[in-house]
């Protein structure tokens, strides 16, 4: 057991990376495996600084491949273990992530997106959206929470552990370099004070009982000899995933009820959209926001309803439409026209959105 540091509501002024380390501690995470890559380093810096007080564990690995696989090892040992990465690190960690997906391992990872492709920038982007949802040679049986600031980081990092251990799908907190590095006020709390109970962990290997007496030896594999054998397993996963999707999907609407122009954005860009919507409303333009919080799985029904109500849709992202592609697929059959404001690897400001929506409105008149 680890010592939880946050025992009562504590208002703090922190960077997002610091928030994530505290959140993992509050979620009773016992072990972190990690490899340095900007902009997520301070998660492990903070985690390590807190170790004497928390009594948790840490291993600095030789690369993200190892960070991913050793996290799996820690989880197999029954520990609430996690890792964090970004950019090219997220790319090479897909090796481990796809194994977690295939073996239904409650893998938890914070992704602090940076510019891509390749090394690009160490600063910010939303270009790992598709990778985090669908990376690896599989079907994307993963759960991805896209956060929009420090309170989200705290809330959803705690939630990620419970989602992962309850449903046994790899679970991600998808944030970005701005959220990791920026400093803003946040309220840290003991999850118990919010009625949150941590889902108990279990040992996958060397669990209770004696082999040959109380139980058989456990043989975990990700290899199948026959195509049909594989499909049967995956059909089971898909059924599980579809069944829980409505239960875990989360979204946020802001002034979307009567919105004529519906902005669809996720993560930190959705925050800029809120600023823009307030400004547009003051100017008499009826704009609103639909923000998917789980971007995998998407909240399809509410999304379709919001889009159906609107006259026009604006997709905006710090990427070339990675979320939009996923969303558009789910909007099949609707005829609401849409426009886009995509800034690859660059922050979208409120002004950007205001200008774009004003142009859309002018064109409509």
């Amino acid at each position: 057991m680890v010592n939880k540091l946050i025992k009562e509501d504590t208002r703090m002024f922190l960077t997002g990376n610091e928030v994530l380390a505290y959140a993992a501690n509050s979620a009773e995470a016992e072990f972190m495996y990690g490899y340095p890559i900007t902009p997520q380093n301070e998660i492990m810096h903070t985690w390590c600084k807190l170790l004497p007080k928390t009594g948790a564990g840490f291993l600095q690995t030789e690369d993200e491949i190892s960070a991913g696989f050793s996290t799996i090892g820690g989880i197999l040992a029954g520990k609430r273990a996690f890792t964090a990465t970004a950019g090219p690190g997220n790319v090479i960690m897909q090796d481990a992530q796809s194994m977690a997906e295939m073996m239904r391992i409650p893998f938890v990872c914070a992704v602090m997106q940076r510019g891509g492709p390749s090394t690009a920038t160490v600063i910010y982007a939303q270009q790992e959206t598709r990778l985090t949802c669908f990376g690896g040679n599989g079907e994307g049986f993963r759960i991805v929470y896209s956060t929009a600031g420090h309170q989200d980081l705290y809330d959803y990092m705690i939630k990620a552990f419970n989602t992962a251990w309850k449903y046994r799908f790899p679970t991600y907190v998808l944030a970005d370099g701005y959220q990791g590095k920026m400093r803003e006020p946040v309220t840290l709390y003991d999850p118990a004070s919010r009625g949150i109970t941590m889902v108990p962990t279990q040992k996958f290997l060397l669990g209770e009982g004696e082999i040959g007496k109380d139980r058989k030896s456990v043989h975990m594999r990700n290899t199948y000899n026959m195509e049909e054998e594989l499909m049967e397993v995956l059909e089971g996963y898909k059924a599980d995933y579809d069944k829980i999707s409505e239960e875990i999907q989360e979204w946020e609407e802001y002034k979307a009820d009567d919105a004529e122009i519906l902005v669809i954005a996720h993560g930190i860009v959705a925050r800029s959209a809120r600023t823009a919507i307030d400004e547009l409303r003051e100017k008499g333009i009826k704009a609103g926001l639909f923000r998917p919080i789980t971007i995998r799985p998407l909240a399809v029904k509410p999304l379709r309803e919001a889009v159906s109500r609107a006259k026009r849709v604006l997709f905006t992202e710090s990427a070339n439409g990675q979320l939009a592609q996923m969303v558009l697929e789910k909007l099949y059959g609707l005829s609401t026209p849409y426009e886009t404001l995509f800034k690859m690897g660059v922050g979208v400001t409120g002004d950007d959105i205001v200008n774009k929506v004003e142009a859309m409105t002018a064109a409509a008149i």
Partner: protein
Amino acid sequence: MSEILTLPPNLPKAQNAEVGASKFCPGCGHGITLKALAQAVDELDIKQKTVFGCDIGCSLLSWNYMDLDTVQTHHGRTTPVIYGLTRANPEAIGIAYMGDGGGLAIGAQHLVNATVRGERMLIIVVNNTNYGMTGGQMSPTTMPGQKTETTPYGRDCTVTGKPAKAAEMVASIADKEKSYVARSTVSNVIKLKSTFVKALKNVQNGGFSFVEVLSICPLNWRTNNYDTFARLQQMEEFFEVKEFLVPEQKV
């Protein structure tokens, strides 16, 4: 004769009796190696706390071969899964089982770093000088002049460099006080077992162990029994069979 054949096989307790016929090719060295390992686990009576991890390549066929808690991982990634586990569970004795490709090519960075950090685990590299499962390509340990699918005219060391010597490399970077490093061979199963016993004892004592096992692959070598062991003998001359590091046992 028929009476002898009907005797139940004398399986070590750490070997899975339910697995039935081996999935390894006829004449493969993995069966010999795994049996010796199982005997070593039996001798030390550590079955209940041992975790066996196996790699991709022919070693993955051992995923249910042992009566041990087992995880089959990705190519080259058995080492990090196992040290991830033993870091989180200090009671566990971890074994990472892989071939020469998994150990020295795709997973080399993990071998190097696990060695340098002195991870509390046993890494076994079964060296049969080629990639067996994928159809017999050149591996880091392919012998000079050896024909494989990717060196059909024989390995030309002026182009490919010389064969990698895993035990020597590991011994040169391991902590001498707490590492057991040896090269053994399937031609001497009694010695192979005692090597595993020493290696596992060292892990029990909190140390890092590495055993390279010279093994055989008659299918991809396209050798008959005689030629198979003649080639193994050549390998034993090229790759020195000995203990490279033996930490002083704690009294």
